[in-house]
């Protein structure tokens, strides 16, 4: 079996006396699209941030492409990495095309060429070239999300993270974003990790699903088995019932 793109063992993270991640073990194979689901505040974003080194874990190991990355993602990993943040996280001070081409410009690509690549990436997510010279504040929420997705894919990364990609979007736009994510992940042949509590995203984006609850991965399996699982956590998450092993009061 080949080395997983991402391998996490015994990951723990607490805030004060509150444990958020309580011994996470997780492997993501190359080219696989894993969707991590769980209720709000269950530590999904914390898990992503720990993997990237944006937050220091209390214990456990993280390996990216077989390399130890417990202290933070190595530069070599980040250079072929793209991420869509929940709120887009576009840089306010830069026009959209400079946002999208940020890594390309950083890597020394001439501005004309970088701009052409940015416009192509914008087109790939359904935004016209007219948007390229606008500033993020001039875009609607959905357009910002698309532009952020264009930024994530512009440098053709081999690993992509998506943090709540459909949060705050209407169902139609959410479907558009989900479809774009699936298309881009497939086109790039990338390893993808998506965190969400949106079941539509699970259905459209996942090869495999993991359910995070109480700091642990309660269930992992192929997307085809997710909705038929008799695991009480999964069943409650899918049906949205208030009673069950997932407490509503957190």
């Amino acid at each position: 079996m080949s080395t997983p793109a991402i391998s996490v063992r015994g990951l723990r993270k607490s805030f004060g006396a509150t444990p958020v991640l309580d011994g996470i073990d997780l492997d993501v194979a190359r080219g696989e699209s894993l969707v991590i689901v769980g209720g709000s505040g269950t530590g999904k974003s914390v898990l992503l941030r720990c993997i990237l080194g944006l937050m220091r874990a209390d214990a456990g190991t993280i390996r990216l492409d077989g390399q130890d990355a417990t202290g933070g993602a190595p530069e070599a990993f980040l250079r072929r990495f793209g991420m869509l943040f929940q709120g887009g996280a576009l840089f306010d001070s830069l026009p959209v095309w400079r946002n999208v081409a940020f890594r390309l410009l950083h890597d020394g690509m001439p501005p004309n060429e970088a701009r052409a690549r940015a416009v192509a990436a914008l087109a790939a997510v359904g935004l016209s070239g007219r948007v390229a010279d606008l500033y993020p504040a001039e875009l609607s929420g959905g357009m910002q999300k698309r532009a952020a997705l264009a930024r994530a894919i512009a440098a053709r990364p081999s690993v992509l993270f998506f943090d709540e990609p459909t949060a705050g979007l209407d169902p139609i736009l959410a479907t558009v974003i989900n479809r774009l994510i699936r298309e881009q992940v497939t086109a790039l042949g990338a390893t993808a990790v998506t965190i969400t509590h949106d079941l539509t995203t699970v259905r459209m984006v996942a090869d495999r699903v993991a359910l995070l609850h109480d700091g642990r991965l309660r269930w992992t399996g192929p997307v085809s088995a997710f909705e038929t699982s008799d695991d009480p956590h999964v069943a409650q998450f899918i049906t949205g019932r208030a009673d069950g092993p997932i407490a509503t009061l957190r």
Partner: protein
Amino acid sequence: MIRLLARIGAPALGLLAVTGRLAIFTARTLSHLARPPFHGRELGRALFQIGWLSLPVVGFTALFTGGALALQIYAGSDRFGAQEAVPQIVAIGMVRELGPVLVGLMVAARVTSSIAAEIATMKVTEQIDALVTLSTHPLKYLVLPRVLAATLVVPALVAVGDVIGIMGGWIVATERLGYVSGPYLRSSLDFLERVDWISSLVKGGVFGFLCALLGCWFGMTSGRGAMGVGRATKGAVVAAAIAILAANLLLTEAFFAA
């Protein structure tokens, strides 16, 4: 007794811890001076924002202060018949003290607040995390250009403020107090020595450095949400103002102690 010591000790230890963290932050920022890549576009933007766009507030502050200073010095010196010293005292007061300090405080109000609010907002909206995932060090991209720009450009603002302040005094003196233009200006400029100008510019550099550094520090360490951004902004301006006044005392001592 122990409770009293604890109440004194806890904030003192906290202050020491913050000072240590700020020193590390400063050293890490400056270490990027020797490590490419350099973000020239960000430096240019910071020079424009901090330097060019601060000119109006610096100019008006210096102009009105110079004028008021001339009136005050005239009224005070009138008590013992020393009105001829007005040009010299206005000039030395502006160049040695009021020019650098007022420009520093204006930069703290305009630039430190803006830097702290901008970076804190970037932190809250995950833009700083996005920078990291795009292989860009936030200290190199956000902090170093601002600190460098302020250190370079605030001395120029101080020089402009000094000159405009002297001109403010000259306008009031000639239009309101009956001084003759040529001799007033000659008295002002002849009285000033090279060390006066050098101290003014050095103070400008130090104040600019402090303003930008503290703006960046408070921004980068801000809490979450709108309250976090507000606290960071307020804390940055207060800290910069105090740091400027404290540094001014130390620099005045260093340059002019008898």
